[in-house]
């Protein structure tokens, strides 16, 4: 195979897409998760059921939606339901295999913050807030998180816990009887972190090609655990890259076309 160049964002999206099991019912957040989910649908996981909180079940968009409720999502869905039904019967009902979330901040136990930077009552930066994330994180059988890794995002202590990962680690999640088992991987532009089976602390288990472990440590706001045998993520294949770029080009064209 010929050498291919790609960006770290492309590597992140492709690595995240690969985590999607074909046929899974997938509750998708907008942005990076949506790009990864749509890539998965167009590569190894054509039977993935894309579910957006706006009410679309089995959406098959041809371009990446800009919002969580673009018209194409509902026009291509197998079923469109009200938002209360989506949250009650589908998410809370335990029907979703995999939740796919982004985050502004994450800590070592994969708890995430999308609410506020600084004090809640005197915010430095007011973020959009919870949306569907707390219950996606709680109720999906499994959760994936994808975000860019740097030490403003990967912090020692969250300013606000919007959505729970493993709380304080160990069995603290199980003790609260969450319906789902929580995050199984955090996919970044530098590598893949997975929770330690016992302590639940996020551990670097795969590093993207060309990235140094030291760079990942520096991008992490806590002393990062690194697996004894560290995998190197397989680089994007030419096929993966071409599908992703094609999707992004079509998306850019489609969204520019409306004014």
């Amino acid at each position, binding site marked *: 195979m010929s050498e291919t160049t790609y960006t770290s964002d492309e590597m992140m999206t492709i690595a995240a897409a690969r985590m999607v099991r074909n046929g899974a019912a997938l509750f998708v957040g*907008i*942005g990076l998760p949506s790009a990864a989910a749509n890539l998965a649908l167009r590569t190894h996981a054509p039977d993935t059921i894309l579910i957006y*909180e*706006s*009410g*679309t079940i089995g959406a098959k968009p041809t371009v990446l*939606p*800009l*919002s*969580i*409720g*673009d*018209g194409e*999502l*509902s*026009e291509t869905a197998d079923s*469109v339901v*009200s*938002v*209360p039904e*989506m*949250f*009650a019967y589908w*998410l*809370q009902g335990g029907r979703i295999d995999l939740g796919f979330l982004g985050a502004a901040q994450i800590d070592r136990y994969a*708890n995430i913050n999308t*609410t506020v930077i600084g004090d*809640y*009552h005197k*915010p430095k*930066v*007011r*973020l*959009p*807030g*919870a*949306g*569907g*994330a*707390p*219950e996606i*994180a*709680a*109720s999906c059988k499994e959760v994936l998180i994808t975000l860019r890794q740097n030490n403003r995002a990967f912090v020692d202590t969250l300013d*606000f*816990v*919007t*959505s*729970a990962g493993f*709380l304080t680690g160990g069995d603290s*999640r199980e003790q*609260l*009887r*969450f*319906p789902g088992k929580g995050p199984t991987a955090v996919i970044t532009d530098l590598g893949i972190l997975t929770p330690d089976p016992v302590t639940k602390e996020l551990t670097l288990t795969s590093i993207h090609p060309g990235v140094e472990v030291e760079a990942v440590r520096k991008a992490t706001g806590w002393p990062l655990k690194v697996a004894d045998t560290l995998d190197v993520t397989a680089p994007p294949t030419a096929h993966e890259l071409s599908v992703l770029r094609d999707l992004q080009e079509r998306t850019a064209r489609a*969204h*520019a076309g*409306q*004014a």
Partner: protein
Amino acid sequence: MASIVQLNEAVRDLVRDGDVVALEGFTHLIPFAAGHEIIRQQRRNLTLVRMTPDVIYDQLIGAGCASRLVFSWGGNPGVGSLHRLRDAVEKAWPAPLAIEEHAHAGMAAAYAAGASGLPFGLLRGYLGSDLPKVNPNVRFIECPFTGERLAAVPAVRPDVAVVHAQKADRRGNVLMWGLVGVQKEAVLAAKRSIVTVEEIVDDLGAPPNAVVLPTWVVNAVCHVPGGAFPSYAQGYYARNNAFYKQWDEVSRDRDSFTAWIDRHVKGTSDFAGFRRSIEEAAGHV
């Protein structure tokens, strides 16, 4: 029975200073025209309720209509922050804005409870989240059968619900389709309601099990073609993504926001005037 009236009359008669108002529409069918009319009529001290306060609430907040916001996700979808919302929360401009913050699942349950005549919505929610620490309206109860701990949120019961739909018939029965969000729940939870529509037709031609609001649960139906712009109305027009992107620039700065609202909203007499004003401005750029 709904009255079929002009939007400015509906807002004049049904939206009062200090009301709890829910303008709903989940990305789709957002009632922009009605929001603008509330700005034109300078309503004050509103408690604004909405799962996803986006550009229309940014405009209402920036224009000084609101003193309180009940919500679960506040952003410009696919673009970024709502600058007027942030300025109000972070710097109390143009007025302090108290917030009651939920997760979507809680808001959805609260609207459904309101529609159901229940005092609270029940959910498996807020587990492990800090939200209950900052929102005293998230409480917990025990299941009387299993002892499980479940979350409770007070029902949403707006004074007025405002939604946009595709069609009404001449009696005021309303049909909507596509993403229907919590619009039906908002109308049924509210004491009064206003529905703006793309078309008024002789016969709704509703398919079986369609989402229909019978005329006798609606107070006012207003014919406002394009009234969801820049959001969209499935079957009529697409979302104007460019507007959402441009809003980021317009709203970033207090002066440019105020100039925009003065020129395009307060400086026009209705939504058609707003659309012409926007198009003229675009033509001169």
